[in-house]
């Protein structure tokens, strides 16, 4: 009996081990199959976007950008002859949900490629999740230093690395004659990986130029009431305000509180919010927007021919004006353009080959300009610009020596003037 029992146990263990190996092999084959497509089969691209929650406005703009790109590609015969199908799921702006979403997209939906979510906060956990499956994560809104410091091999940000976003602004400020240069500055920023590096990068430059910091505080993203913080800034009466903001509500809250305090700085730049086109104008009013500045690598009036085509397609589909197109749309569109060029260059949808190609120092073209990645996945070619609202128009003002830059509206007009 004992011999039979041992034999049975051995067979059982062997069966379980064999089944596990077969399962693992099947999983590998299944994963590998995503790189080759049958003729006529669509190519599925998995994307998690913040369609609700804190980043919902940006998430919807990203969705528009991705869909515009997919429509454009499909209108021209698809990717290597395969129709592009976007598999978009919502992560509710939650860094935990975004991981679940990408796992589902790859292991259940069997997407061929993955595009990134919105924000550095969500891009980093997403990249870690998809790297376990060997997928590339090309994204357009995850340029915080913390994203690249993770040392992942599979993440690529097509946009401007955020740490240097405010550099042209600081160069312009320090180029002003001492007599008209701001004497004091207030730094106030959300504790977000997108905002803090930008603000801290320019502090030494402005200090060295003799601009005294009169307020320097970090606030948590979940602040209920910005009024007391804004009042404290207003009480310090700085000539310049550098606001580390991610979204429109934060900027509009500060603007409203400043106006109610009777305070209007000579210079007011926010890291995010004023670049959201018509959304920003709807929230703050066109007159109050006058003079507000924001750094970015793209705007609706860009002379780039690829950008002009995309903006025309956007206005045709969604209405509005070029100034009203959110930079999120361009960032998402650029992701598609870069991946399409990598797919064409590698001749397929093999993520390992795509990752190798993207690391190969090739320069690709996008609506935001040229894209070349370093070994960290950081785009090393883009130029940072500063934009400003002037008379309901969103114009490029920095770098000062750029032929497309117009004169900075300085000092900023009083609120509502």
């Amino acid at each position: 009996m004992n011999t039979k029992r041992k034999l049975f146990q051995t067979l059982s263990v062997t069966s379980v081990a064999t089944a596990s190996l077969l399962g693992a092999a099947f999983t590998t084959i299944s994963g590998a199959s995503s790189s080759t497509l049958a003729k006529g089969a669509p190519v599925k691209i998995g994307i998690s976007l913040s369609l609700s929650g804190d980043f919902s406005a940006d998430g919807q703009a990203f969705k528009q950008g991705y869909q515009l790109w997919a429509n454009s590609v499909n209108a021209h015969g698809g990717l290597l002859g395969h129709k592009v199908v976007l598999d978009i799921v919502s992560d509710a702006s939650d860094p935990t949900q975004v991981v679940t979403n990408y796992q589902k997209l790859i292991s259940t939906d069997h997407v061929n490629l993955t595009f990134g979510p919105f924000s550095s906060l969500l891009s980093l956990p997403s990249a870690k999740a998809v790297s376990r499956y060997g997928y590339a994560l090309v994204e357009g809104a995850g340029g915080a230093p913390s994203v690249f410091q993770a040392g992942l091999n599979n993440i690529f940000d097509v946009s401007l690395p955020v740490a240097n976003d405010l550099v042209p602004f600081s160069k312009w400020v320090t180029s002003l004659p001492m007599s008209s240069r701001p004497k004091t500055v207030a730094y106030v920023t959300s504790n977000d990986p997108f905002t803090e590096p930008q603000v801290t990068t320019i502090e030494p430059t402005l200090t060295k130029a003799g601009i005294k910091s009169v307020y320097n505080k970090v606030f948590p993203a979940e602040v209920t009431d910005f009024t007391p913080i804004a009042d404290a800034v207003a009480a310090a009466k700085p000539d310049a305000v550098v606001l580390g903001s991610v979204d429109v509500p934060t900027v509009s809250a500060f603007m409203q509180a400043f106006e109610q305090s009777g305070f209007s700085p000579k210079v007011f730049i926010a890291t995010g919010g004023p670049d959201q086109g018509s959304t920003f104008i709807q929230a703050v009013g066109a007159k109050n927007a006058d003079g507000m500045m924001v750094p970015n690598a793209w705007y609706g009036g860009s002379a780039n021919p690829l950008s002009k085509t995309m903006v025309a397609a956007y206005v045709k589909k969604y209405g509005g004006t070029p100034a009203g197109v959110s930079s999120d749309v361009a960032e998402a569109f650029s992701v598609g353009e870069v991946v399409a060029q990598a797919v064409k260059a590698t001749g397929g949808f093999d993520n390992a080959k795509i990752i190798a190609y993207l690391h190969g120092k090739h320069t690709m073209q996008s609506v935001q300009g040229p894209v070349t990645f370093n070994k960290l996945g950081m785009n090393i070619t883009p130029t940072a610009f500063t934009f400003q609202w002037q008379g309901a128009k969103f114009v490029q003002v920095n770098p000062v020596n750029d032929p497309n830059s117009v004169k900075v509206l300085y000092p900023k007009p009083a609120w509502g003037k």
Partner: protein
Amino acid sequence: MTGSVYALMATGLTLIFGVMDIINLAQGILVILGAYLSYALAVHLHIDLFVGLLITIPTMFIVGIVIERAFIGRLKGPEKTAMSILVTYAVSLLIEGALNIIFSTNDVQLQAWYVNKSFAIGSVHFGYIYVAGFILAVGLLSSLYFMLYRTRFGVSIRASLADQTSAALVGIDVRRVSTICFGIGVAVTAAGGMIYGATNSFNASTSYDLISRLLTIIVLGGMGSLGGAMLAGVGMVFVGDMVGVVWSPIWSSMSYFIVLTIVLLVRPQGLFGKPVVRVA
């Protein structure tokens, strides 16, 4: 002044819980719905934000009655309170989806000539909208108190608050009282939403932040306590603002939760809540 608006929104939530044992997770999205109604009236019909309340408050009252009749009133039995969390969350998702379709997810803010204006007393500036919001909140809360303590219907509500079975035994139509209470609890969101929308940019997703704050307010004040909701609403903003200005904004949100934790350790029922004894 901002705290009074939170108090107003939380009062509706605590009134509903006190009378009906319903935890209304939809209160946040109903505030946003109220804000969007004011937005639609202002943008499309050019109706002033405060004048618009004459339309939005009754409208939200009816919305509350419909929700109560369609969903809440059907909840029965010992699991009623727990089930109400799921049902009102589902209602919240439905309204959020509808608002996203109708208004998109772009942030908007209510605009009027007085929204960004202020007056100064000495060196202190007071925003018209905050002062008006404070007066509105105090007025509505006073009216609510008058109704509760000076009217026959108020007696019915307070009796239902104290003990639904006993109230029914003395001839009070508890079902009707509950429906009207839910309507009132939702109606105040029209005013709260208007002031919130004039002082903050918002979209439908803003409701998640709002409901989490409203729930902590009524937990601190004591579930079912109107006075507690008012005190906690004002206290939440006051504590956060003071810490933000005197110390650092980074601690402003956490400071309120520290206060909440300390209070709950000493008084698990909240500041003005009644102790609950679980019967085995």
